[in-house]
C-alpha cells in the first residue's frame, strides 16, 4: 500500500467517523459509495471538504468528472497526485 493510499484511507475513516473500519477493510479499487463501503451523498460532501483541507485541491460539485474521482480510493489517489503535480 503506497503512503498516499494509506493516508487517503485514514482521511476517509477520520472525516466520516467510520468507527469500526480500519484501512485494511477498505479495498483500493472497490466503490466507496452505495456498494462497497456504503457511503452516501452527505459523505461525498464531507469527503470533498476533507480532501480540500488536506491537499488544497478542490473537487467541483456534482459533475461526471467528480463522480469518477470519488469512485474509489485509487481514483481519489490518482486525482490528488495529478492535481498536486
Amino acid at each position: 500500500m503506497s503512503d498516499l493510499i494509506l493516508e487517503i484511507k485514514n482521511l476517509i475513516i477520520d472525516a466520516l467517523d467510520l468507527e469500526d473500519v480500519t484501512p485494511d477493510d477498505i479495498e483500493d479499487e472497490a466503490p466507496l459509495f452505495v456498494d462497497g463501503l456504503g457511503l452516501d451523498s452527505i459523505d461525498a460532501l464531507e469527503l470533498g471538504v476533507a480532501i480540500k483541507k488536506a491537499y488544497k485541491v478542490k473537487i467541483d460539485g456534482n459533475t461526471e468528472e467528480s463522480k469518477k474521482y470519488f469512485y474509489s480510493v485509487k481514483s481519489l489517489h490518482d486525482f490528488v497526485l495529478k492535481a498536486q503535480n
Partner: protein
Amino acid sequence: MELAFQIAKCVAWAPGVETEQEWCLWQAEKHDFSSDISLPALKAIPAMQRRRLSPFAKVSLHCALEASDHRQGDLPCVFSSRHGDLNRTTKLIENVAAKEDLSPTQFGLSVHNAVSGLYSIYTKNQAPISAIASGKTSFMAGLVDSVVKLHVNQLDHILYVYTDLSVPDCYSGYLDTNESIGIGLLIQASAFQGEGFKLSSATTNHAVLMGIQSLDFLNFYYGDAISWNTPVNKQTWTLTKN
C-alpha cells in the same frame, strides 16, 4: 380549564441516573448524578447511521426510542431543548471564526430539529413533529404543547422528548445551571389505563422559575406529591396527579 392525560411510559437519562429505580432513589435523595457521562449505546441503530450521532443526539434518541418502545411508523412528537446541540454549533462557530470550511455533516445536524429528523427517518415516522426552545422554561413549554396537541388533534398518543446537555465551557459562565438531562414521555389520552395527570394554568404577574424545570418535573413524577406548580412567562402551570 383542565386538560387530562396519562403518561404511559417515562424514560429519563442523566449521568449516573438511568433506570427507574435509580430515579426513585435520586428523588429520595439517596442517589446522585455522577460527573462522568456514559452515553447510551443505541445498538438498535445501524452503525452507518449511528456514527453521525452527537452525544446530544444519542441521549435524545435513547429517550425517544425507549419511551416509545422502539415503535416504527407514525407517532406525533414534540422535541424540546433549551440549548439544542450547542456543542456541535459551537464547533461550527469556531470554524467560521478561524475562516475554515464548515463540515457539511456538522452543519446539517446542528439545526434545532435535526434530532427529530433523525428520529423520523429511523422510525419511518411521517406524523407531525415540532421542535421547541423556550429558554429556561423549555421543558414545560414542550409538555404543554404535547398535551394541547393530544387534545386538539384528538390523538391516542404523542411522544414528548426533552434534552439538554451541559454547554461548552465558553458559555457556562452565562448560565446559573448547566445540567445534562434527557426525558422521553409517551403521553396518551385519558381513556386508556395509565398514570393520570391534569394540567391547568393561572395568570400571574411575577412568575419566576427557581431551580431546573426538567428536574423539578422528575422530582414530582417519581415522588409522592400530588401537585406541582411551575411558571412559563406570566402563567403558572399546575400539574396534578389523579
